[in-house]
């Protein structure tokens, strides 16, 4: 792929309007290059899986999209707004849930949702919260402090928070990691349905390849901070001579150079 700088890329964007455009993204921590020239897009109504072994750069990329980590180079646009220069506007239509960012345990589910509804300036905040409590099966825990919830319940509370502002871009970092299989299936179905119905673009990281195959329209395999492979999770393993997405994942994790050459 021809290397474009960020400015060129946005000038040369095709007619489709991706909800997320990441271009030539780099992040260096001292001597370590954590993210190395990553470019991709997420379109409305599309669920993109961001896969890779631990330390591949997935969370670093998500943090840069969320504006809590400044890229060393490159550009990120959410609905055409540059996160570097129009951070508040870009993040107003974005939300996220991550397994490592649970809601404060000293506030109840309702209080947390009320707090974030104000932060996101959600207009019909009270009604929106009540609807989400039902949608994520949290009605019984409305007035329970988040710290007292099971990890699965906390995950659902974080997902309800993630849907508060009706995001156009949703970043989910291992959203079902602490859910039991039954609840995980429900949540996957719910998120997929919400993405389809509201034309939400979703960037989804997971180490559960069955889940990825079930949910994602497209996957990006990251290795050592760079995108190694990209494609349909249902056909990609065959294209690389593997029997399953999990086999492909293991190969990427162990022998990224062979995959690249192949």
């Amino acid at each position: 792929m021809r290397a474009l700088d960020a400015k060129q890329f946005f000038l040369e964007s095709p007619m489709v309007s991706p909800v997320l455009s990441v271009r030539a993204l780099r992040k260096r921590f001292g001597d370590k290059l954590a993210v190395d020239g990553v470019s991709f897009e997420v379109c409305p109504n599309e669920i993109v899986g961001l896969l890779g072994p631990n330390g591949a750069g997935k969370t670093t990329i998500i943090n840069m999209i969320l504006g809590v980590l400044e890229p060393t180079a490159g550009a990120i646009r959410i609905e055409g707004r540059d996160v570097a220069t129009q951070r508040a506007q870009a993040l107003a239509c974005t939300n996220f849930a991550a397994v490592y960012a649970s809601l404060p345990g000293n506030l109840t589910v309702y209080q947390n949702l009320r707090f974030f509804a104000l932060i996101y300036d959600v207009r019909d905040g009270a009604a929106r919260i009540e609807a989400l409590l039902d949608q994520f099966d949290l009605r019984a825990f409305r007035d329970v402090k988040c710290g007292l919830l099971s990890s699965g319940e906390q995950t659902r509370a974080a997902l309800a928070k993630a849907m508060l502002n009706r995001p156009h871009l949703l970043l989910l970092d291992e959203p079902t990691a602490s859910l039991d299989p039954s609840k995980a299936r429900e949540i996957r179905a719910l998120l997929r349905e919400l993405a389809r119905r509201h034309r939400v673009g979703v960037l989804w990281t997971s180490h559960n390849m069955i889940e990825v195959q079930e949910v994602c329209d497209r996957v990006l395999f990251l290795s050592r901070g760079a995108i190694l492979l990209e494609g349909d999770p249902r056909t990609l393993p065959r294209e690389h001579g593997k029997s399953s997405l999990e086999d492909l994942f293991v190969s990427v994790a162990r022998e990224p150079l062979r995959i690249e050459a192949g």
Partner: protein
Amino acid sequence: MRWHPILAIVLRQFYLMRGSPARLFPLVMWVAVDILLWGFITKFLATVAEPGFNFVSTLLGAVLLWDFFGRVMLGVTTAFFEDVWSRNFLNVFATPLRISEYVAGLVLTSILSSSLALAVMIALASAVFGLSIFAYGALLAPFLLVLFLSGIALGIFGAAVVLRLGPAAEWLIWPVPALLSPFVGVFYPLATLPAWMQIIAHALAPSYVFEGMRAIIAGEAFPATHLLWSTGLAAIYILLAAFFFARVYRHAVRTGLLARYSAETVS
């Protein structure tokens, strides 16, 4: 700046206080204990000292004003520490919340909590020890303003230090009012201090408040230039503290400190 995100910070603090009444202790109980302790000390001193010196207005009034300053500072830092303690930075800062709105929310929280503390202190000092805050006359309002601005500035500075150095640095912040108190002359004239301490004292806005308070009680004039100077100093502190916080925040975003802010110390 938008109002709703600012109110969110205040509302969160209200929820926390309502859910955990122990959080009210620093606002009400500790200041009440301080007023009682110093109230009885002033009563005792009044019995052993020469008549004519007003211990209540001088010492108890000073304690009240100094506690107010401390409450304002801690109002800002405590609201900030809530995000430190609950490891909530990622949730809070990965939103459209602007840093100016966040700091404004901390300040508004402090205004409300320190006002409550001030009301409790005045009520107790007046009812039990006969302190009349009107003894300071019309200068009470600018005195409180200078202390308020200085407390806000110190609170924002303290929050920035903890953001930069990590959660463990909160232990550096709690004793700051106590460290400053010898320099600002809460209980004695600045002339009592050695020369090098006086130089520092003159750079601290609260020093002028306590000098002014003593001058008024003694029936002396308090130069308006001192008042203007202290207000100007406090305003400069606010600007410097806000600048420092913004710089630390930008550093935290650039280095990834904000995203991984949960360790005991960060570097």
